């Protein structure tokens, strides 16, 4: 498979930030408030802490197999056939994630902004953009990230700053009201939503990122920026709306944006602010999709991933309409199964690869 694209570390970091805050910015506050109540923000901090360890772990693995992406590593470590089988399972993981993310964004649009539009149609249009982006290549996607990043950050900052007047710290006191357990539970859930899927970045980082000098501090810094966004949005939603309302909202962040009211300056602007989430989710979706397409193409030794991009896009659309029959199902599945699903591919899989490689003494190709 030809991979002659170049991504700078800077672009990679921005992509990672958007990937982490992608769906979390819209959904995390509700689930965190649901688990941890008053301590949703503590839960968010904890999850960022745990995520930090995961990021370092990922970095160590990337050092262990320099220059090899996930598919290469699987085949080197597990042998050709088992490696290919595992890679195909990973295709399943990223494809399902892509379709659930697609569903999330479609559902958000249908619930909040355009209720009469059929979801299939919205999914189709969104996927059109994603497929187009992936066809153009990850380099182009990364450049687009660079263009949109300032706007996304600005819009998020607007929420943060203009919500400050309505923050009521009292609403999240007392701390640790119902003990530490719910905090941990919420944190783990958030980790599974925001940090574990970072594994798909292994399709980008090892081969395509050009300047890896002193990568870890930079990656960690950007990870922390992303984490700060999640903590901040959790803090803002719970203190502005109150914990109970946050937990009960489908999209608490949207409600916060709705109640922003700086008379004569920002008012009734939630649709504009929603743009920033649609953008972040768009990039998250693109990355999931890119990972699934490239892993599949590489596993099957196709010359280029571009030929199968369009049908994969169709498949994602097809899956997205059947994966979640309803919002209730979505919540339930996310709470019970997603954590394990993400743990399997986000932690267990790379950990196993690393351990087996150490036992068998396999080392990644230094520079292909």
């Amino acid at each position, binding site marked *: 498979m030809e991979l002659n694209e170049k991504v700078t570390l800077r672009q990679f970091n921005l992509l990672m930030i958007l990937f982490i805050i992608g769906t979390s910015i819209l959904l995390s506050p509700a689930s965190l408030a649901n688990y941890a109540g008053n301590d949703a923000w503590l839960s968010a901090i904890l999850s960022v802490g745990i995520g930090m360890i995961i990021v370092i772990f990922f970095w160590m693995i990337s050092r262990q197999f320099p220059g090899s992406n996930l598919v290469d590593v699987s085949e080197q470590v597990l042998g050709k056939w088992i490696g290919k089988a595992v890679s195909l399972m990973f295709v399943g993981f990223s494809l399902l994630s892509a379709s659930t993310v697609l569903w999330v964004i479609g559902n958000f649009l249908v619930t909040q902004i355009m209720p009469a539009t059929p979801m299939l149609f919205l999914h189709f249009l969104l996927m059109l953009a994603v497929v187009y982006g992936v066809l153009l290549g990850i380099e182009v996607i990364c450049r687009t990230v660079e263009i949109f990043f300032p706007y996304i950050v600005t819009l998020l900052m607007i929420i943060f700053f203009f919500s400050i007047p309505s923050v009521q710290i009292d609403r999240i006191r007392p701390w640790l009201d119902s003990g530490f357990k719910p905090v941990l539970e919420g944190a783990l859930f958030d980790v599974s939503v925001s940090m574990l899927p970072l594994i798909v970045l292994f399709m980008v980082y090892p081969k395509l990122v050009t300047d890896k000098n002193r990568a870890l501090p930079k990656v960690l810094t950007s990870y922390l920026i992303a984490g700060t966004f999640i903590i901040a949005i959790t803090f803002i939603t719970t203190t502005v709306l109150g914990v109970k309302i946050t937990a009960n909202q489908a999209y608490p962040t949207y409600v916060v944006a709705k109640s922003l009211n700086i008379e004569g300056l920002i008012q009734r602007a939630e649709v504009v602010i929603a743009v920033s989430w649609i953008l972040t989710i768009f990039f998250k979706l693109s990355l999931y999709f890119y990972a699934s397409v490239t892993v599949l193409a590489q596993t099957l030794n196709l010359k280029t991933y571009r*030929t*199968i991009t369009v049908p994969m896009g169709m498949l994602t659309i097809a899956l997205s309409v*059947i994966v979640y029959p309803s919002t209730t199902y979505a919540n339930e*599945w996310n709470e019970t*199964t997603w*954590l394990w*699903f993400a743990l399997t591919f986000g932690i267990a899989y790379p950990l196993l690869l690393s351990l087996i490689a150490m036992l068998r003494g396999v080392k990644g190709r230094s520079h292909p």
Partner: protein
Amino acid sequence: MEVILLTTLLVWAGAGIRKLRKQGLWKDMIVYACLWATSTTIITLHRFNIPVPNPLDGIAYVYQPLSYLWKQWFS
């Protein structure tokens, strides 16, 4: 409406397959055709309200014992 959409999809797929055949990429063509067939089937079935097995149910089934334990530990 459905017919038009379906025809569009099939024409699209046909064009793609023809292009791949011209280039002589047989493996790509097979993968292409398989993916396309799967997705068209799913969408068509869904459109006519015929239940399609949900992959998430399968995954949930696999992880059931784990999530059960998890629930117990946290409640």
